[in-house]
Every structure is written in structure tokens, then in C-alpha cells.
């Protein structure tokens, strides 16, 4: 095992190709000990392949994966100090809960005494709050309980790294948020490095302390959840993590004046260092102020509300702005004075230019066909 100073997981120029298809392209990544890393991206972005290379189910085509400082090329899964929680739990149907959890301990050499195994399995089941379920059959357990058995089965072995492959995808929404909190608490208590694969940006942002956004087999951005959300590295990240509105515009030579498609100019506050020319302005829905009543010559853009989605604590409006397209605006209920704007009503949209992100238009690689890039 590595010393505390070392990274628990390290990718050194790792590439994985399946025949002509390259799933992972020259990735280098360091995950410090005790981190909770989320590999986030759309399906086919290579996140699962990365996880499976850590687990040992795939071998890199080139480059090397290190776990706790040791090179893992050619090391089979059963000789790696990692354990995995599989997407569909992969519990052994012919074993009961206790036998499932004890499986890893029973394989360890030198052998662990039966009493010790029993004690540790009991502790692990207590930890995931399944104390009285030791003798249950797997098919008698609900999805959430099976999820916790899978978690106990992995954690009982005290691995250096716990891998989680979309572990919450099969759970309903309420159970999912409960498990998110549980996982986060467990991770903090145990201090084990967690690597979570998910396509759900909310899950990644809420649980992880390190988010790695991937696309097309490459890392687009690696950072703390707030950084990734507030300072997306490119348009793809801005679209994939949270929702985003786009305005296609031209940045003038001064680096701070945007020429909008309707001919007006917008001062973005400070000089942006991206070079003049075709530019995409990205702005979060919650950064836009929506004011009812649209005098044609006021501050911001005049538009018409086309749809309203009431979400309880907030309201989402779709607003059509001539020459600029559709905007998604999230209004916080605590500041709208209880007044909802009706579809068809004229409104004005305004935002603080400092909250807008500018990306060169060449970054136009974005998730297919949406301007409000949210996925769940």
C-alpha cells in the first residue's frame, strides 16, 4: 500500500482502444487519497472504461494505471486492492445476504478465521443499516436494500479504493437522494477513495469533491464541483453540467464588446482573453433576471414567455427573444413576490455580464441538439 502522501489512483497517458474505436484517449489523472471523484459524462464518453481499467476488467492499450503507487498493468481484478459496486449490484443470487458480504473475506489469503469474518460481516451490515437482514435471500430484498448489500460487500474488504458504477441509477428519486447522503457520509467516515461513474450531473455535483467531466474519451475539465459549475472550461462542460443559454455573437477587437445578432452591442464588463471573432456567450438560467412588462426600449432584452414549468421552490420560464432565440430562465420563488408570469406575457431579461461565459465558436462541440444542456 502507498504512503499517505501518494495518490491513490494515477492514470499515466492511458489509452484504451477496442479495434478501431478509441474509448479513452491519452488520459492522465491523479486522484489523491481519500478523494471522492466523480467521472461525469454522457454515455460513450469513456468514463465506464476508465472505471473498469481501475477495477482490472479492462487493460489499457497503452499507458499505465497505478493504484496506491503500484503499476497495475496485467494485474487481474482479483489481485487489486479495489472493490466495485456494480450498476445492477451483481449480487450472487444463490447466496443469502451474509454469504454475499462474506465472499470477499473468504477469498483472502492467509485465511481469515470464521469468527472474524462473521464479526466483520456483522459490522458491515450494521454500517449500511441492514443489521437484521443477514439471513435474507437476495430476491427478498428491495432495490435500495440490494444496493446497500452491494455496498457492504465491497466495503467489508476495506479496499484502498471503492469503485461505483452508476450505483444509484436503478433507484427511484427519493431513495436516490437518501443514498447520496449515505454514500457521502460513509466516504467521509471511512476515508476511502471513492470513484463514482455517473451521467447525472446533479449526482456528481452533490456527492463528489472532485468532478472529472469527460467527453469523447478525453477529460474536459477536472475540478471541484463549484469550479466546474461556475467556471466551465468550455462550452461542452457548460452545457453538460447544469443548464445553459447560448447567444451566438461576435467579440470585437477590444475583447469586451459583443456584437449581438440583433445588431446591439453588449459590454461584458471586463476584457475576455479569447480573441476576437465568432463567440458563444453562455449564461446560466438562474443568472438571468426576468422582469414582467416589456417596454421596447428598457434594459436587457425584450421577449415573450412561451412556457412555464412550476417546480415548487422555483419556476422555469421559456422566453422567446426576437433575433436571439429561446432562453431558459429560472426564477427563485423567494424573490418573485409570489407573482407568476403567465405564458404569452411580455417580459424583459437582464443579466450581469460578469456572470456570462464566453467561448470561441470553435468550441462548438456540444451535446446533440440542445441549448439547455441538462441531462439526467
Amino acid at each position, binding site marked *: 500500500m502507498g504512503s499517505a502522501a501518494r495518490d491513490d489512483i494515477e492514470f499515466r497517458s492511458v489509452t484504451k482502444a477496442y479495434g478501431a474505436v478509441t474509448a479513452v484517449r491519452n488520459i492522465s489523472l491523479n486522484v489523491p487519497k481519500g478523494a471522492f471523484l466523480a467521472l461525469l459524462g454522457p454515455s460513450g464518453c469513456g468514463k465506464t472504461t476508465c472505471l473498469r481499467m481501475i*477495477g*482490472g*476488467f479492462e487493460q489499457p492499450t497503452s499507458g499505465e494505471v497505478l493504484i496506491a503507487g503500484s503499476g497495475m498493468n496485467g494485474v*487481474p*481484478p*482479483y*489481485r487489486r486492492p*479495489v*472493490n*466495485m459496486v*456494480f*450498476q*445492477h449490484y*451483481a*449480487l*450472487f*443470487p*444463490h447466496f443469502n445476504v451474509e454469504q454475499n458480504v462474506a*465472499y*470477499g473475506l473468504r*477469498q*483472502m489469503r492467509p485465511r481469515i478465521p470464521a469468527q472474524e469474518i462473521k464479526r466483520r460481516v456483522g459490522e458491515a451490515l450494521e454500517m449500511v443499516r441492514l443489521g437484521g437482514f443477514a439471513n435474507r435471500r437476495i*430476491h427478498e430484498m428491495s432495490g435500495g436494500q440490494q444496493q446497500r448489500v452491494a455496498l457492504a*460487500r*465491497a466495503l467489508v*474488504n476495506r479496499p484502498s479504493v471503492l469503485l461505483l458504477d452508476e450505483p444509484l441509477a436503478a433507484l427511484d428519486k427519493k431513495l436516490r437522494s437518501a443514498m447520496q447522503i449515505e454514500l457521502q457520509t460513509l466516504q467521509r467516515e471511512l476515508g476511502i477513495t471513492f470513484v463514482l461513474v455517473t451521467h447525472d450531473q446533479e449526482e456528481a455535483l452533490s456527492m463528489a469533491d472532485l468532478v472529472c467531466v469527460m467527453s469523447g474519451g478525453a477529460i474536459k475539465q477536472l475540478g471541484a464541483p463549484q469550479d466546474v459549475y461556475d467556471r466551465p472550461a468550455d462550452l461542452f462542460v457548460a452545457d453538460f453540467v447544469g443548464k445553459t443559454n447560448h447567444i451566438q455573437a461576435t467579440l470585437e477587437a477590444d475583447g469586451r464588446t459583443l456584437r449581438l445578432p440583433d445588431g446591439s452591442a453588449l459590454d461584458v464588463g471586463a476584457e475576455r482573453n479569447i480573441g476576437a471573432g465568432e463567440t458563444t456567450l453562455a449564461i446560466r438560467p438562474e443568472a438571468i433576471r426576468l422582469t414582467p412588462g416589456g417596454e421596447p426600449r428598457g434594459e436587457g432584452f425584450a421577449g415573450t414567455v412561451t412556457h412555464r414549468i412550476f417546480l415548487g421552490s422555483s419556476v422555469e420560464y421559456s422566453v422567446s427573444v426576437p433575433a436571439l432565440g429561446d432562453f431558459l430562465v429560472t426564477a427563485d420563488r423567494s424573490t418573485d413576490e409570489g407573482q407568476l408570469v403567465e405564458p404569452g406575457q411580455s417580459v424583459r431579461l437582464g443579466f450581469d455580464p460578469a456572470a456570462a461565459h464566453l467561448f470561441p465558436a470553435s468550441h462548438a462541440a456540444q451535446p446533440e441538439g440542445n441549448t439547455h444542456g441538462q441531462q439526467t
Partner: protein
Amino acid sequence: MRALVFAVYLFLYTPIALVVLFSFNSGRNASELVGFSTQWYGRALSNPFLMEALQTSLIIAFTSAGLAAVFGTMAAIGLERVGPRVRAIFDGLFAAAIVVPGVVIGIATLVALAELFSFVNPMLASVWPGTNVPKLSLGYGSIIAAHGLFSMALVTMIVKARIASLGRDIVEASGDLYASPLTTFREIVLPQIRPSIVAGFLLAFTFSFDDFIIAFFVAGSKTTLPIYVFASIRRGVTPEINAVATMVLVASLVLIVIARILMREKKIAS
């Protein structure tokens, strides 16, 4: 339409029902029912020739089904790990083995064995140290081989279907939990596919036990139960044969029903 279906089933099952019915006939004549009796069962079970044929059949069925279960399972597991093209070829070959008519398998096996014997026996004679030279010939071995090969295709198909439904992830999970591939097979894969192996064994057993055509070609001087029944029928249908047929029918049905249950139950459990 309904009448037609009815007629088809009538045509299919009436002869079988008659065999069962006449096996309990107390009269000697197979053409008239006289009264109820189980005497023919007693007669059949005390017929030494019949019992010898039964024993031969049981030995062949057990051995060939056992071999088929072992090798069929190995083939099924092996086929999981080859590329899709190779697998498609083997799937086709196994399916073909099942649909090839028994007569063809019988003749082909006979010809192949005859060729093999005429090739091996002289060689054996030339290298054997003593005077008591063993000579390969038709008999137990040839029937077991012919039945075993055919049943192996059967077992492979059944076990392969089960392995396919098993899913890769529990095998990976076992590996992830420090189990070597051998341990994974013993602790995870085998318990999951065991019912399908048993089902395959039972079907193979029934097939071998009932088979007349292939056995007839390669039996040599051995007499299996179906061959005995066939031979006795040439001397006229006796109620004794009806009793034998009924017993074989019941035994086969029981085995097949067990096999079906084993194959079905696993689908639910997974």
C-alpha cells in the same frame, strides 16, 4: 378447424393410450380387452432377456448422458469466450447435429467406426506384447460414443442458454472480490448453471434410453431395450411388450418433466 386439430391429437395419442390400456389387459390376445390385470408387468420384470436389455440400456444411458453433461458443459463454457464469428459457426454445427436424422447419424457413425477399427486393430495387434490381443469392436463403447456425441450438442445448447442469461457482472463481481477464475467457476458459475446441466443430463438420458435408430446401427451384438422390443415385436405384439412400453413411457415422461422444471425455474430465479 377445431375438428381437424382434434383429429390430429386423436391420431397422435390414441395408439399410445391403447398401448397403456392393453398393458393392463388380462387376456393374452392384443385385439380384445378381457379384464384388468398387472400380470404382464410381473411377466416383463421376470424376463431375463428383457432385464439384460434394460441393464444394457441403463448403463449406456447413464454413461453417455454423464459424458455428454461434462463435455457439453465444457463446450458451453468455452463457447462463451470465443469471438462472435466462431461462436456462430459452432452454434450452427450444434444445431445441425440435433436436426440431422438418426438414420444418417447411425450410418455415419457405423462407417466411421468400421474404418477406425480396420485402421487401429492391425496396429494394435502388431504392437501388443502378449498373445491375447484386444480387438476394438462395436458394443457398449460405440453406442455410448454415438449417443454421447449427439447428447453433447443437446447439453451444450441448454447450458449455453443458461450461461447467456447469467450475465457477465456476477462473474466480474466474484473476480473483484478476490476470487480466482477457478474459484469463481466453482462458487458462482457452477451453482447457477447446475440445474441446466442436470436438465441436459436428464434429456440426454431419455434420448439414449429411448433411442432405437442410432443404437441399431452401432450396437453390434449388444441388445438395448428398444432393440429388444423391436425384435420381440417381429414375433407378434404381446401384452408384455405393452407393459414394457408403458414403463418406458412413464419413466421418460417423469425425466422430461423434471428437466423442464429445472430449466424453467432458473429463469425465474435469475
